[in-house]
């Protein structure tokens, strides 16, 4: 299969064209993942653009995004495939007297009764896809093993149907908010990308790109203030999404040059804990 990306620079530019601002790390690892045919495990604090990265790569390459949202209790039947139990029951009941059991059996384990879930969908896809396995740290270790199996072989075996092998190696992103240690085996299989809060310049770019009607000057101020706040010892640092929310609010309020008073009145959009708000207000001498 031809590589998806020309160069690291082309990843950076392509992402920028779809409004995602990547740094050297993000662009470099995405490029490499394609060349090596390996999944990327993207880890970092919430709201730093991990999910968006997969979406934007899909958009930039014109691939279909298939998303598996993980949660506690996610299992094979929701991740991979499931037999449509209800439909099968009804079919069996309807045919109680007429067909032989083996006929019914063949029938109810056919495509018609198969519910395809995201992993199977990604493997059977004919067109280019990006598979996003979002917040993988939420699943149990057993489910992780299932993921690992699929990400190693890019194939699935369904007892009733046989083995299904991928027609193409999809670009796979797994994201993690790092609420638990993932297994060594899974980490070994993946390229690892830690996405942290962006440097000030990049955050300013993100604000400029994403917030309609914002001026260069305001974006600059926003990014600077956020940087200063992140240096404090807080319960929870503002994420990029919170920066964006804050910037949008300021624009709505018609503010073009933040003063101390305005900053203080809007800090609650940036920070979630009362003690953090108090600390930031004091530190920025806006009390």
């Amino acid at each position, binding site marked *: 299969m031809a590589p998806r990306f020309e160069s690291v620079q082309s990843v950076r530019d392509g992402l920028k064209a779809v409004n995602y601002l990547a740094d050297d790390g993000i*662009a470099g690892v995405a490029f490499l993942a394609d060349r090596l045919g390996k999944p990327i495990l993207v*880890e970092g604090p919430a709201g730093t653009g991990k999910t968006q990265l997969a979406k934007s790569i899909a958009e930039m390459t014109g691939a279909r995004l298939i998303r598996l949202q993980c949660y*506690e209790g996610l299992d094979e039947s929701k991740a991979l495939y499931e037999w449509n139990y209800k439909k099968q029951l009804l079919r069996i009941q309807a045919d109680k007297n007429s067909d032989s059991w083996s006929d019914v059996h063949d029938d109810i384990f056919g495509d018609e009764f198969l519910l395809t879930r995201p992993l199977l969908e990604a493997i059977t896809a004919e067109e280019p896809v990006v598979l996003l396995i979002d917040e993988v740290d939420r699943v149990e270790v057993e489910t992780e093993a299932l993921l690992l199996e699929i990400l190693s072989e890019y194939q699935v075996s369904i007892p009733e149907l046989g083995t299904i092998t991928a027609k193409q190696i999809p670009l796979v992103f797994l994201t993690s908010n*790092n609420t638990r240690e993932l297994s060594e085996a899974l980490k070994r299989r993946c*390229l*690892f990308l830690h996405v942290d809060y962006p440097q000030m310049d990049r955050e300013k770019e993100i604000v400029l790109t994403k917030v309609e009607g914002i001026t260069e000057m305001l974006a600059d101020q926003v990014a600077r203030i956020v940087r200063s706040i992140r240096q404090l010892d807080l319960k929870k640092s503002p994420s990029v999404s919170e920066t964006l929310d804050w910037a949008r609010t300021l624009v709505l309020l018609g503010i073009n040059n933040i003063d101390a008073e305005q900053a203080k009145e809007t800090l609650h959009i940036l920070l979630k804990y009362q003690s953090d708000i108090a600390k930031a207000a004091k530190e920025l001498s806006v009390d």
Partner: protein
Amino acid sequence: MLDLLSGFIIELRNAGLPVSLTENLDAMHAISHIPLEDREAFKYALGATLVKNNAHWRSFETVFEVYFSLRGPEYKIIDGEAGEGSLDDFMQQLQNMSQQGEGSGGAGGMDALTPEELMNILMNALLNGDQALMRALAKQAVQRFAGMEPGRPVGGTYYLYRTLRNLDLDGMMDKLMDATKQQVGGELTGLEERLERDEYNHRIEQFKQEVEAEIRRKLVADRGAEAMAKTLRKPLPEDVEFMHASRDEMQNLKKALQPLTRKLAAKLARKRRHGRKGPLDFRNTVRHSLAYGGVPAEPKFKYPRPAKPELIVVADISGSVAAFARFTLMLVYALSNQFSKVRAFVFIDGIDEVTDYFKKTEDISEAIHRINTEADVIWVDGHSDYGHAFEVFWDKFGKEVNPKSTVMFLGDARNNYHASQAWVIKEVKQKARKVFWLNPEPRSYWNTGDSIVSEYGTHTDGVFEVRNLRQLEAFVEHLV
């Protein structure tokens, strides 16, 4: 290139990073796809194959610097007069500056500048955030001030210190702020001033890193990468000993604490919820069966919810074990949702309850700060007296230990040869659910000198060696 890579990976392993065979192979493939010239992308690509834990990134970066810093066009070393590329740029810049009437009197170059002129140029570079100029100045500063001689067995920090001492970067901040005020023609508001300061701090920090990098490059050129990497080797954050952490390491430890607590909290919550599947929930199953025409197709189970334990922490906060107590308290309170109740006591030779400090604020660091400054832990002379502290604890709070309590004693049990009063621990054990002792000293030091940890330990459910974050994490998991 492959030789270089294998040396690099050996050094990573020496530094404690767990690099597997697969990862080694991946790294080999990786470097065939990304040119070394795109240095940052190259670094991250290599990192993506080799570093699977963000806490190890700094160690990786250090080794990377040492092994790959001599490569890449913009990183050529200036040896006396041999210089090109970035140096040319720099000379160009310098000329531009003197044309603007700010720099030296001519094209005499770097070496001809007086120290005052050099400082002026540095100030302008910092004022404008001019990266290229900052880098060139860092090189010049090292050449001028570090006094590096080939073959001298001196560490990089020494040269760094010598270089920075001559630059007076602290005084620089005031000058930068004055210049900024002049530029805007008046006073700055408090907010503006703070933001400007943060910006200049950031630039000064960048400049320092340039200086450090330059010194490192010269040392590598002199001594070779392998020897250099060896002198720079530092323990990973999770292996740093609480009792001997430097200030810098403390900072890193603190940073490592937050993700750790999140991880632990999630793990503990999960453990409690999914301890085991309970009995069939009949009512719920029937309710769901309605969807299947009365067939109980989806059996539902009850989940038992075991009670959360009550935690009592009794911590020695004297001298060398203070950092350990601080960390453990921080961790415990960050996890306080996992316990039905947490009470904290601190002592040296007197003992004081500090539970309220944590109740009054959401900010754990503030509570810890109050412990250090306000807690009443001195009875006679402020030398550890476990015996007295325990006696008082038993008198005042003993009645509150109950079958739901888990009690943790923290300390090295170095009792200055006072009476041990170990009977207190025995009494506590009789009333409590569990009693543990956490000792930050290496096991081989236990019961030597005035340490009487076993005297206390025999009455507990276990004494644990907790020298670093890794061991603390393991203990907390064991606890719940």
